[in-house]
């Protein structure tokens, strides 16, 4: 086991740069312009391009086997989810806890049709206690994992959607389990059209502008999801659903929709 010092000293020797005085070196990290200003410019540009971006997103995600539904009303989004759940003979839906999903009141609609819905959140107080909560958390996590392993459909929100590639951006946060978009055979994501951005570079800039602690804003995991899980490992024939979901649906709720 090398020490960091020994390891890096070897690299430094290989670079023959011991003679370059540290003061003469340019900074390791730099930004072409002020982050805040750049982010504001991006937001202005995005607002102006929104409808074109939505069209591009639909085209790109469809091209990689995703299904995009652009709806005008919350009721349409709910109807889409319930219809899909019935088509798949789903009995268990696991979903993110998110404001958009809460306001859609999709749980009641699914339960009416006999589909159990479970939000990936902890019961109030589970996180509160000091020492005892570690065990409680562990058992809660295990319970949620068991649910996810047998869920027929995972329902999530998104942080952003990238039009250029048809990519969902999903961060890991309280209420936003990674497994919802990963373990069930069908993944349905619900987004507002205002969450559509142009490029990955836009996202990376927006997250950089979100606040001082960049790592905190990145969360422990950002998943960029573009279409269903796919493989070409047998004779290079494209096949979907190898480890992740075999189906990906994106419901875009128009931002003018009252909620």
């Amino acid at each position, binding site marked *: *086991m*090398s*020490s960091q010092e020994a*390891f890096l*000293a*070897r*690299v430094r*020797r*290989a*670079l*023959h*740069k011991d003679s370059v005085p540290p003061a003469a*070196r340019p900074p*390791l*990290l730099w*930004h072409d312009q002020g982050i805040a200003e750049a982010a504001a410019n991006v937001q202005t540009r995005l607002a102006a391009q929104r409808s074109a971006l939505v069209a591009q997103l639909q085209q*790109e995600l469809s091209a*990689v086997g995703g299904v995009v539904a652009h709806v005008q009303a919350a009721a349409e989004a709910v109807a889409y989810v319930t219809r899909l759940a019935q088509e798949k003979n789903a009995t268990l839906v696991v979903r993110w806890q998110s404001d958009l999903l809460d306001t859609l009141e999709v749980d009641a609609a699914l339960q009416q049709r006999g589909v159990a819905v479970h939000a*990936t959140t902890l019961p109030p107080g589970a*996180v509160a206690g000091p020492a005892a909560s570690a065990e409680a958390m562990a058992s*809660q*996590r295990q319970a*949620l*994992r068991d649910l996810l392993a047998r869920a027929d459909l995972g329902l999530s929100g998104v942080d952003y959607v990238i039009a250029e*590639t048809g990519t969902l951006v999903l961060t*890991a*946060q*309280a209420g936003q*389990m*990674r497994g919802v978009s*990963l373990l069930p055979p069908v993944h349905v994501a619900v987004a507002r059209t205002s969450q559509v951005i142009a490029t*990955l*570079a836009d996202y*990376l800039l927006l997250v*950089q502008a979100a606040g001082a602690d*960049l*790592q905190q804003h*990145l*969360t*422990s*995991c*950002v*998943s*960029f*999801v*573009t*279409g269903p*899980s*796919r*493989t*070409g*490992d*047998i*004779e*290079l024939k494209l*096949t979907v*659903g*190898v*480890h*992740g979901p075999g189906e990906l649906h994106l419901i875009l709720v128009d931002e003018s929709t009252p909620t």
Partner: protein
Amino acid sequence: MQTQTASSPTPRSHAGHLGTEGFKEHARQALQDAPLQQALELLVTNFVPRRVAAMVALGNAEALRTEARAIKERTMARLDEYLELFATQAQRVGVHVHWAHDAAEARQIITNIAQDIGAQVIVKGKSMASEEIHLNPHLEQRGYEVIETDLGEYIIQLAGETPSHIIAPAIHKTRQQIAALLHEKLGTPYTEVIPEMTQVARQALREHFLRADMGITGANFAIAETGSIVLVTNEGNGRLSSTMPRVHVALMGMEKVIPRLADLAVMLKVLTNSATGQKISSYVTMLTGPRQTHDLDGPEALHVVIMDNGRSAILRSTNREALYCLRCGACLNVCPIYQNIGGHAYGWVYPGPIGAVLTPMFTGLDTAQHLPRASTLCGACREACPVKINIPHMLLNLRQQLVERHDVPWVERGLFMLWAWIMQHPRLYASAVALAALVQKPFVNQGWLTKLPAPFSGWTQSRDFKAVAARSFRQRWQETLQYERPDAHGAAASEVRPHE
């Protein structure tokens, strides 16, 4: 596989690979392997046009490749500082950072982690770095159950083989071979329907994901600014391996670091477009630390193992740019040699043109001396490379080292000295060419030299030479000048005369 590892004297064992010394024989066998040839045909007809179409669709591919290369150049010039920054940032969010000087240390670090957490079952995402250190046999010998979860890697693990392509590891196997393998090893009903075979693998592997204690992946990128590692997959094996087990270990070569978060947009674009012609892969996972207190899933601990294993020697060498490689596989697909012999013939972990550069530098030039020579130097690899690595130039560097290091036969040396001397004397050269045109006569076959006597016989064994023309270019040039300008001895004519 195990006995080979145990009996070999150094960590540079073949561990299932053919070894590089028998390259010529392996290549010969590959050329006669009908299923392999069928598979390689598929590769050429699929990957090559897909990448070209994707690059055209990008519109600014050339500018992107230039930018990606600049990012790599900048990183490599101050690699020690970027690695240090990465480690500091990763540790800040609770990542355990380990430093491995060589393969043995990397294996030891990972084994120690497995032991410390009491692991029994280990799932693996696709990782060429772990192939490089022959991690699986090492862990298996110590009693761990290790399961490859990338479908292609899983197939070759079941078959007891090694990958033959960087991103399509089981490309050398036909669907019938894979169908038989799944049926035999998993006891599932025989099917040649690819979606059904995929579902069989999904179910088998899902169970492993749910019971695994430890997940091992590689890392496509490590971002110094944020201490994040980035996994690029299509199936989701990277996501599951880094999410389900309670401990995640990422093994990366030290060249994987990139400076800034913003650099990811460029690097990712050139990687996926070059690898599979995709604008982005199905899944890109950016991990910044293990799960936080409020997270409901994700591993409780994240270890990143940063590996040198010969890379600092490459950094020091004239072939530094070999470290820019993103492992996209594009140079394999376009290489006329790889297209004909596939990956296994190269004898070690990294095949194709980039393998012909990396393998001698990792395993020693003497034993791998055939690899730098197994190239037509056509330059297709350089054209296809997302970071414009000048592979032909590096192959020439290696060939030069071989010549400097070894006694070249006196005949060859003498002939080249003679050739160089003649080339420096134009009149002598003209006479030599005229002489050659006479001497060659008994050997010319319809304008070609197909079989020469010793000491030239080796050259014509596998290639034909155009015969020396009866009238040389220089003669014809002179005649043209005289025809057009009767006063050919004037100043203007001599100015354009070559070589004089």
